[in-house]
C-alpha cells in the first residue's frame, strides 16, 4: 500500500553545522585578539611562497605568527613554512578538497590563542569548494597569479565573492606572459565590486610593503570584516 507523502517544512541551511562552528571559532579568535587570515587560490598560485615570506617578515617585526596549512596528501608545505620558524601545523585532508571549520578547530586544539597575534590558514589549492566553508577567519585573501590569466575572477566568481582581498601574485612575470593588469582589475571589480586588490611578487619584492602594511593595519585596528 502506498501512501501520499506528507510535506514537512524544514528550512535548514545545509551547512548550518559548519556555520555555527565557524561562528564559535570567530568569537574565540576575537576574544583572544587573534587576527585570522585565510588564503585561497588555485594550486600553484603562490600561497605557500607568500605565506613563507609573510611569516618570516612578521616574525622579524616581533609579531607572534602561526599557520595552519591544508593539503590533500603531503606535508611539503608545512616543511617549507617551518623554515620561517613560526609554529606551523599541517592539516592533511586526504581526499577532501577544502578545509572546514571542524578541521580548524581540531588543529588549534593544543595552541594557546592568546599567544598568537596573527594566524594564517592556507586552504587546499582549489577555487571551488573552499568558497562555501566559513573557517571563522577575519579576512580571506584570494590569490591569482599572472600566469593564470586575467579572466580567473570571471571563471570563479563565487570564491572572489566570498573573499575580502584579491592579491595578484608573480608580478615579476607579468611582462613575460603579457598580463593585462587593467583587465584583471576590471574583472575583479565586476565579480566583487569594491574589492581591495593588490599586486605583488615575493621574488622581487614588488608590492610586498603595501601588502604587509595592509595586514598590519587590520591587526592594529582589529577590523573584523
Amino acid at each position, binding site marked *: 500500500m502506498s501512501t501520499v507523502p506528507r510535506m514537512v517544512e524544514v528550512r535548514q541551511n545545509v551547512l548550518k553545522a559548519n556555520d555555527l562552528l565557524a561562528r564559535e571559532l570567530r568569537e574565540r579568535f576575537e576574544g583572544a585578539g587573534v587576527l585570522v587570515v585565510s588564503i585561497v587560490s588555485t594550486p600553484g598560485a603562490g600561497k605557500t611562497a607568500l605565506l613563507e615570506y609573510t611569516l618570516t617578515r612578521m616574525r622579524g617585526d616581533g609579531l607572534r605568527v602561526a599557520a595552519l596549512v591544508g593539503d590533500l596528501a603531503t606535508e611539503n608545505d608545512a616543511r617549507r613554512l617551518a623554515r620561517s620558524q613560526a609554529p606551523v601545523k599541517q592539516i592533511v585532508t586526504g581526499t577532501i578538497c577544502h578545509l572546514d571549520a571542524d578541521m580548524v578547530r581540531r588543529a588549534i586544539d593544543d595552541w594557546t590563542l592568546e599567544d598568537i597575534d596573527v594566524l594564517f590558514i592556507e586552504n587546499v589549492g582549489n577555487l*571551488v569548494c573552499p568558497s562555501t566553508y566559513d573557517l571563522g577567519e577575519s579576512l580571506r585573501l584570494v590569490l591569482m597569479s599572472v600566469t593564470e590569466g586575467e579572466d580567473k575572477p570571471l571563471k570563479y566568481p563565487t570564491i572572489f*565573492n566570498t573573499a575580502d582581498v584579491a592579491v595578484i601574485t608573480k608580478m615579476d612575470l607579468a611582462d613575460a606572459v603579457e598580463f593585462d593588469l587593467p583587465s584583471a582589475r576590471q574583472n575583479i571589480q*565586476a565579480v566583487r565590486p569594491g574589492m581591495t586588490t593588490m599586486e605583488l611578487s615575493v621574488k622581487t619584492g614588488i608590492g610586498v610593503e603595501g601588502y604587509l602594511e595592509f595586514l598590519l593595519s587590520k591587526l592594529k585596528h582589529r577590523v573584523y570584516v
Partner: protein
Amino acid sequence: MASEEAARRGSSHVAAIHLKLGALSGVVKDALTFSFEIACQGTALEGSQLIIEDVPVTIQCSTCRAEHATNTIQDLRCPRCGGTETKVVRGKDLEVVAIELEEAEELVS
C-alpha cells in the same frame, strides 16, 4: 539532515527533498544532482527526488538603494547606476526548505 528529520517524525522513507540553491552558493547543480542519487543509496532517501529551486542573485546598491535581480554572477555592479558598493542580499542559499515523508505503514495486529 533529511534522514534524521524523517526518523524524528517516525517516517521510514523520504520521498522528496525541496532545496533552494543560490547562484552564489558555490554548489554546482549538475554535480549535486549526479551525486545525490549515489549518496541516497542504502539510506532512508533511496529513490527520492531532489527538487531544486534556483535562486538568482539579487544585489542591493547602496548608492541608488535599489534591489536588482541579476542573471549573471560575473558582474555584480549596479546595473542602474554602475555603483560598486553593492551587497548580495539573495543568492547564497543552500537550504533544505521541505521534505516529503512517506508514513511508516501501520502495523497490523
